């Protein structure tokens, strides 16, 4: 940690001290409820209430949204969010529930919304009082996102929305949705516009949220159906027909490549929710035996664990080198790798953990004999959510190949 501190500016250094002290006194403690591995699988009101209280207290203390200006509910600090994130991870806090809001909606509203809208929406987004969700994918529009068909028809000063969004995480708790809508059927890209939509207030009145069950058996994402929902034109972000450009802001931040650092907490270890980094494979491999020996003594397993540790270390060093312009060939080359690599490394780690567990990896959450409560098979199943969501790994490789390497476009 001394290493981290030496890199701080004086503002960051003071803020780090402040965060550390605040967290020492205000960690919310072990939750009274079982928490899922990530906020994308929050299912009950008890889980949500506990997590919302935690986000609110961190926001009130200035640890959430601190790089945003004060007028929109931030603290106007310079490059301090990652300091708060560092310290929250170090303090092993719960995660924030409003992940879609913090990671995607906030930067999009901030860069493309009108002042009045920002001032109205962002404070409650940062505090977690308003949960947000994202309406991008549709049954017919996945990797080819620009083919969305959910249509907004102009009617006086209002828009009438009809259509069908899918894979909508947190929609069952959300007050607000960021949504990509078709406003013109004659142009694929220029026919898209971007809005924020209050959905909770319209439930049963133009909006229906239906839960979808994931391969893990958990819920957390939904389909959202719009039937003649009326929305005000003041909820539009940026110009009519600029939806695709606005969506790029959302996606850039979703993939960890945006210029605003997403507020992020986590690290809380309990029997129901644990982080899955590569180092944790070592203790697992020491516990399990194979052919009468510790799996930790199997040369192939050792090699594979080291490979995971090296990849994980490389990814974290990428973040650091990303801040040294002299050592970068292209400004987006490192940022655009973040989402792809973090999701694929997590998948490899979970897959290896199951190999280490061997026969016991067949035991799932709920089985009293399952090692680590069956969290590794759960993590492995869940890892596919991350390599598919926010642009599949295949789409990420297209983007890197085309935008960074300059290879011929596939569309």
């Amino acid at each position, binding site marked *: 940690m001394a290493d981290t501190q030496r890199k701080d500016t004086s503002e960051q250094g003071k803020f780090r001290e402040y965060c550390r002290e605040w967290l020492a006194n205000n960690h919310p403690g072990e939750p009274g409820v079982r928490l899922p591995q990530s906020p994308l699988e929050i299912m009950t009101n008890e889980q949500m209430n506990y997590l919302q209280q935690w986000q609110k207290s961190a926001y009130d203390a200035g640890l959430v949204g601190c790089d945003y200006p004060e007028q929109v509910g931030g603290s106007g600090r310079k490059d301090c969010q990652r300091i708060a994130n560092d310290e929250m991870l170090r303090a092993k806090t719960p995660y924030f529930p409003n992940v879609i809001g913090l990671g995607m909606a906030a930067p999009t509203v901030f860069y493309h919304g009108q002042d009045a809208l920002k001032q109205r929406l962002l404070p409650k987004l940062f505090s977690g009082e308003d949960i947000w969700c994202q309406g991008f994918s549709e049954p017919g529009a996945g990797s080819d996102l620009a083919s969305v068909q959910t249509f907004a028809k102009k009617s006086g000063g209002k828009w009438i929305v009809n259509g069908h969004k899918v894979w909508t995480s947190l929609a069952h708790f959300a007050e607000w949705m960021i949504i990509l809508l078709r406003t013109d059927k004659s142009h694929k890209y220029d026919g898209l516009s971007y809005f924020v939509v209050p959905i909770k207030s319209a439930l049963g009145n133009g909006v229906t949220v239906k839960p979808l069950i994931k391969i893990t058996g958990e819920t957390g994402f939904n389909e959202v159906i719009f039937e003649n929902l009326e929305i005000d034109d003041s909820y539009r972000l940026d110009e009519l027909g600029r939806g695709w450009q606005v969506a790029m802001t959302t996606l850039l931040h979703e993939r960890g490549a945006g210029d605003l650092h997403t507020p992020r907490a986590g690290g809380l270890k309990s029997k129901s929710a644990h982080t899955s980094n590569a180092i944790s494979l070592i203790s697992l491999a020491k516990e399990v035996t194979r052919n009468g020996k510790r799996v930790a003594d199997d040369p192939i397993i050792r090699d594979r664990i*080291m490979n995971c540790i090296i990849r994980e270390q*490389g990814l974290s060093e990428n973040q650091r080198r990303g801040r040294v312009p002299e050592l970068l060939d292209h400004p987006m080359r490192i940022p655009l790798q973040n989402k792809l690599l973090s999701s694929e490394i997590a998948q490899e780690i979970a897959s290896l953990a199951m190999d280490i567990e061997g026969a016991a990896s067949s035991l799932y959450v709920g089985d009293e004999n399952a090692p680590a409560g069956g969290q590794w098979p759960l993590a492995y199943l869940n890892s596919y959510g991350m390599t598919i969501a926010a642009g599949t790994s295949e789409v990420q490789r297209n983007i890197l190949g085309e935008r960074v*390497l300059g290879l011929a476009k596939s569309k």
Partner: protein
Amino acid sequence: MSNNTYGFDQDAALLKDSARKFFSEKLPVDKLHELVANDPTLGRAPRSNWSEELWQEMIDLGWSMVAVPESAGGLGMPAVAVAGLMEECGRAAIPSPMLSTLATTYVLAAAEAIEPLADICSGEAATLAISGSRDAWDLASTEVTYNNGKLSGTSYYVQDVDKVQKILVSAHSDSEILLFWVDKKSNGVNIDLDTIVDLTRDQGRVSFEAVEAKPISFKGLSALVEAMPKIWMLVSADIAGAAEWQLQTTVEYVNARKQFDKALGFFQAIKHPLVDVMIKVDETRSLLYSMANSISASPEKATQLAHMLKASASDLAGFASGRSVQSHGGIGFTWECYVHIYFKRQKHSQMLFGDASWHRARLADILIGPVAA
């Protein structure tokens, strides 16, 4: 110096930048090909093709003494700056005793051997003779012995030996390993060059027949152990630079070459593996500067970061090389296409001072602990 930037300061940036310009001007790849690939004959006699004049210019620029401590009369540049310079040497696939001389310098500095370091500062090139015929990556593998003031035996896999003036030899003396500074022209020193795949390097066996020598320091094996992470850094930097050349050259080719009415790069079977090469280059480069910075910022982490680095770099060397030739198709399989020069250099670097699985096994010994008996 801010740690925020790996200590990669203006001097380091200037050195890297001027090295890149120097090599692209003095030895562009077509000239490199003329220099090193002038005889494709399989089974040809071993020889080293290089430009002594170019090496002399590099010496005159001070590059061969960048790693010599200031206290010993050198430039004493930090490891991040040296890494930047080595990346450019790799990008140019420059045939020179640069890597060997820098590697030797790090061992000499660890051994606090002032007089040999003065030889480096005077412009002499040097290399390490520390490997036996088996277990070449084991620092105790030397088959040379030291008895009654004389060295006897043979060293193997000695890099760039045809291009250097001095040899740093490790030898068993009673129960310890000691280091000796030997002039290549000394009586009893005999060199046989190996026939090697890599066209940009030379390598040989050095035999010592009762060569008179004195240990340069009371430190022997410990100096080698201390210097090895920096030596892995040098090779890894060379690999990273060469891999970026392979990547960019291949990207250029697949954008220009059309099949099925489309540029090859359009096809995801070509595009995605090249993205994976880029990702691997970045992993290696990020580990490279982190490891180089750790030498001064957090020395307790240097060895494990160096194992991570060389493991990553060795995998990169193999992977980038395979993709570069495969993506070039038929032309990539010919002697006239330049990619084979880098392919061969990378395959040599991949194994040099430990391949990926060897480094991962060492890392596992640190992080997991040794395999239980």
